[in-house]
């Protein structure tokens, strides 16, 4: 029974059942949705003015940063083409709302109200406003299930933002802890370091913040690796809205004068070159 569900045979059964059970999910999520709607209706004018002003301020600040971003992006793209680097990440996002239903209490999963109908696919990265939250593991026509990065079954390739050191962040089953495993005792990682996605797994786009290191130590009597714990920067237990991201790794534009095979080998070479740079 259990062995079967590790394979793909039962996916069809699960999908069919889940689709027919969607009304139940919808009903269960209704009270909290209504409560929030009523809360929004009852806001006073003063509060709304206040919120409006705060949002405008934030918008102004973000736009100011955006201006510099645009020039940086064009520069980055130019440099990448100079290097002959292969990929470019075009991003499309979709905002989804969490369905507030209780799933298996000992797993770190959430349900969102967008599904196959909106083009959600298995393995799609999910972010909130601050950082990476998890990835889609099951899709139904109207909803999908997201596995959070803190689930014990989830691992995610990360990179220390300061030193470029690469590592794997494993979930612990606690909503606010990640464990960085298999780092040697002299690894260059400190408390307060920001971990970002390294993009190596091919699931998550590169360079999104994941977690902040809160403890780094070495206990020789317990294990020969360093014990490093980190706290996710995403608000995993408090977000109402999440972002579903489409990462389209577009193939490199083939240069007209070189034949295709040469282009791919050059690309492979440049890729491995980039990898070497990362390691240092």
């Amino acid at each position, binding site marked *: *029974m*259990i062995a*079967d*569900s590790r394979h793909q045979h*039962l996916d069809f*059964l*699960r999908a069919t*059942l*889940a689709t027919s*059970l969607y009304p*139940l*999910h919808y*009903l*269960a*999520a209704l*009270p*909290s949705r209504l409560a929030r709607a009523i809360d929004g209706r009852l806001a006073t004018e003063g509060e709304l003015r206040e919120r409006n002003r705060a949002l405008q301020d934030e918008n102004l600040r973000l736009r100011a940063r955006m201006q510099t971003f645009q020039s940086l992006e064009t520069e980055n793209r130019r440099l990448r083409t100079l290097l002959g680097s292969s990929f470019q990440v075009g991003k499309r996002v979709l905002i989804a709302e969490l369905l*507030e*239903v*209780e*799933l*298996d*209490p*000992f*797993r770190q*999963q959430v*349900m969102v109200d967008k599904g196959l109908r909106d083009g959600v696919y298995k393995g799609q990265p999910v972010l909130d406003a601050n950082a990476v939250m998890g990835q889609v593991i*099951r899709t139904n026509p109207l909803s999908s*299930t997201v596995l959070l990065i803190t689930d*014990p*079954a989830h691992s995610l390739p990360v990179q220390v933002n300061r030193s470029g050191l690469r590592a794997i962040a494993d979930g*612990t*089953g606690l909503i606010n802890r990640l464990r960085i495993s298999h780092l040697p005792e002299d690894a260059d990682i400190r408390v307060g370091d920001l971990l970002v996605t390294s993009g190596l797994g091919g699931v998550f786009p590169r360079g999104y913040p994941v977690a902040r290191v809160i403890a780094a130590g070495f206990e020789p009597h317990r294990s020969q690796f360093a014990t490093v714990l980190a706290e996710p920067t995403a608000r995993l237990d408090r977000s109402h809205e999440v972002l579903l991201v489409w990462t389209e790794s577009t193939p490199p534009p083939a240069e007209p004068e070189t034949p295709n095979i040469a282009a791919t080998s050059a690309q492979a070479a440049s890729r491995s070159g980039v990898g070497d740079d990362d390691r240092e």
Partner: protein
Amino acid sequence: MTTPTTPPRWLPFATVTGALFLTILPLPFWAEPYRPQWLALTLIFWCLTQPQRVGVFWGFGAGLITDVIQGALLGQNALTLSLVAFLSVELSRRIMAFPAWQQAVSIWLILLLERLIHLWLMGATGYPTPSLVYWLPTLTSALLWPWLAALLRVLCLRTSPG
């Protein structure tokens, strides 16, 4: 204790669906660990009062639906609820002869066994062992049993024909 009249066929379906709804209804954070095992309780009631109509297959089906709805491993709840249904059908004559508090205790034991098997399954699939809070729902469920049973019995009498 036994219900003399047979309730209509749709009643077990309706109550099990209601129990499923209560299982996934979001609760405030402090109340989360106390959530009773609604589905198991409802199932036990039907197995005890209608052992010839509701049995292991009901447990399996309801468990499978719970697995899907909660995103658990397919078969996890199906296994434990089948066991619950089997035990309650087997012990129905004995348990129905008990006074109310003794019934609650025996149901508590069945629910403890259900949690224990759940724990084994979690261990086998690589999940960390939860804290002692894990066992709290069995207590709230056992305390809830007399009231839930009374409520369902009234429902049976009201809806039965004649």
